[in-house]
């Protein structure tokens, strides 16, 4: 007899097991929205260079909640909820633009670029009749404001006004890797790619915390040595387990002792036009790939010379939106930009690597949603979450669930 109703009790084995109800249960999903995305977390919003001028704005999401990031006349960035204080209307419908103020279309309440309420039509009534009560105070009815912080051109925001600084939230090791890519050079957006992946948002995070799959699933990574288990690699976590980084160094397209078990390794696979994979070294260290997961909503990707953020926007328990923002540095020459654009073929909705992930994550959701009382096994590399100097481990996923369970009370 198989029970289908979850009892919300985590398996006794701890984070080396994942109960499948966490991927499809609506009550768990609602709790995640409240405690993770709207809780004490720094959420990725975008880049300062996406809103360079006063009045520029960008519409995006923190969890399921739409927010607007706007630059005021003094050049400061503000992030506020895209929900009118009056009746809850999501007033901003454009993905980006420039505005002097934000006017809700329904009753035309007006907000400034900081999210303050500055106008209410008919506030004093019409011809002496009606209007808001005398004591109605504009200042106390502004938009819900998030606390925002910019870090070398990247914007993060949180609903927790007492949130610790971003650097402390990341910890030294994660901050080191974050500022390896966001090192202060200007960020030039090359473009966006958006896809809906029909699976629970956590599976995307797990995928980028899971170096074990990379050597098995992806022919492109394995064959061309872009990310493979027999290469010098590191898996590192922050002290809480919520953030992680996978680091590796490029290998050769030749069979080794390590490739024997990799069915995806194809010794004779060749590109007819090798310009697609023509990486050049650009960072001071010897790492050629660094994939960082920053809790709760962004992945920072450096694979060869392709750089991108991947923002996770949950759209219900069974689906999420993945927004890829590809970028270059403003100091890049045109040849480097061309190289980044070519290598972008590896990633995104048509990526020679990431197509595999999107598809396999959909297969995973199809399996777990029909079997909520079963558990997944996470014992590769042991049952703890210690950093390792190899990639034959699921430690970063265990670390994620250590933290997740604590915040979720599971």
């Amino acid at each position, binding site marked *: 007899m198989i029970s289908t109703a979850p009892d919300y009790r985590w398996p006794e084995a701890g984070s080396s097991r994942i109960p499948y109800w966490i991927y499809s249960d609506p009550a768990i999903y609602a709790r995640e929205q409240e405690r993770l995305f709207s809780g004490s977390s720094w959420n990725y919003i975008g880049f300062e260079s996406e809103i360079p001028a006063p009045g520029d704005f960008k519409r995006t999401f923190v969890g399921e909640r739409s927010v607007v990031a706007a630059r005021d006349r003094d050049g400061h960035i503000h992030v506020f909820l895209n929900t009118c204080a009056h009746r809850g209307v999501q007033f901003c419908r454009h*993905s980006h633009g420039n505005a002097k103020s934000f006017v809700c279309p329904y009753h035309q309440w007006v907000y400034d670029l900081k999210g303050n309420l500055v106008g209410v039509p008919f506030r004093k009534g019409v011809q002496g009749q009606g209007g808001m009560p005398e004591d109605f105070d504009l200042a106390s009815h502004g938009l819900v404001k998030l606390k925002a912080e910019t870090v070398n051109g990247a914007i993060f925001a949180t609903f927790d006004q007492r949130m610790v600084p971003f650097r402390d939230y990341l910890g030294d090791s994660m901050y080191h890797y974050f500022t390896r890519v966001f090192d202060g050079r200007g960020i030039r*957006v*090359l*473009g*966006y*790619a*958006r*896809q*809906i*992946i*029909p699976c629970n948002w956590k599976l995307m995070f797990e995928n980028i915390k899971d170096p074990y799959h990379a050597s098995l*699933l992806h*022919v*492109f990574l394995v*064959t061309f040595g872009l990310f493979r288990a027999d290469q010098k690699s590191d898996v590192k976590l922050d002290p809480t387990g919520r953030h992680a980084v996978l680091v590796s160094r490029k290998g050769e397209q030749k069979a080794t002792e390590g490739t024997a078990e990799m069915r995806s390794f*194809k010794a004779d*696979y060749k*590109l*007819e*036009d090798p*310009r*697609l994979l023509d990486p050049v070294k650009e960072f001071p260290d010897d790492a050629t790939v660094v994939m960082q997961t920053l809790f709760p909503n962004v992945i920072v990707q450096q694979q060869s010379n392709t750089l991108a953020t991947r923002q996770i926007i949950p759209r219900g328990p069974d689906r999420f*939106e993945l927004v890829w923002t*590809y970028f270059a540095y403003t100091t890049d020459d045109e040849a480097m*930009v061309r190289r980044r*654009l*070519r290598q*972008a*073929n590896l990633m*995104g*909705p*048509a*990526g*020679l690597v*990431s*197509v*595999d992930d*999107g*598809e*396999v994550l*959909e*297969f995973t959701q*199809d399996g777990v949603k029909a079997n909520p009382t079963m558990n997944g096994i996470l014992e590769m590399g042991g049952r703890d979450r210690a950093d390792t100097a190899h990639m034959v481990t699921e430690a970063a996923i265990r670390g994620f669930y250590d933290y997740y369970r604590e915040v979720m009370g599971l």
Partner: protein
Amino acid sequence: MNPGLDLSKLTPIELRLQVEELLYAYADVLDNGLLDDWPPFFTSDCLYQIIARENYDRGFPLATMLCESQAMLRDRVTAYRQANVYSPRYFRHLISTVRIVGIESGIVSARSNFAVLQTLVDDKTRVFLAGRYEDCIVIDEGRLRFRQKLCIYDTLHVPNSIVHPV
């Protein structure tokens, strides 16, 4: 092969029929899985992009799929066959509103609308991508070929992955 094909000698109606036939033959190849016949629709130095309308309109250069030669198209076919993992599916291209928008120095500029329907296992047929083709067509080795094909899709959110050319 039609070595006598000369764009300057075609009437507008004849040219339009030639371009329509090219587009429909292209769709036929893709929808029937004849991917080896796909790269020869392009010149050897072609540019093929599947690009989000959002990027195209805002002047962002990023394409979701970028091929800068017929060889890169063949690399995509090889990846589709030998590298990538994906569910089985059917595609159906609907191409309409074909217009010749210019002809200059032997290059025909043509614009057309496309909708690609995708049918996955366990699901009904759905619109996968909708958008327009911006094509530059030339005579190459006696047949019409795409020197440039931009597949500019309106569909803001790609339904999971683009596993196959459009």
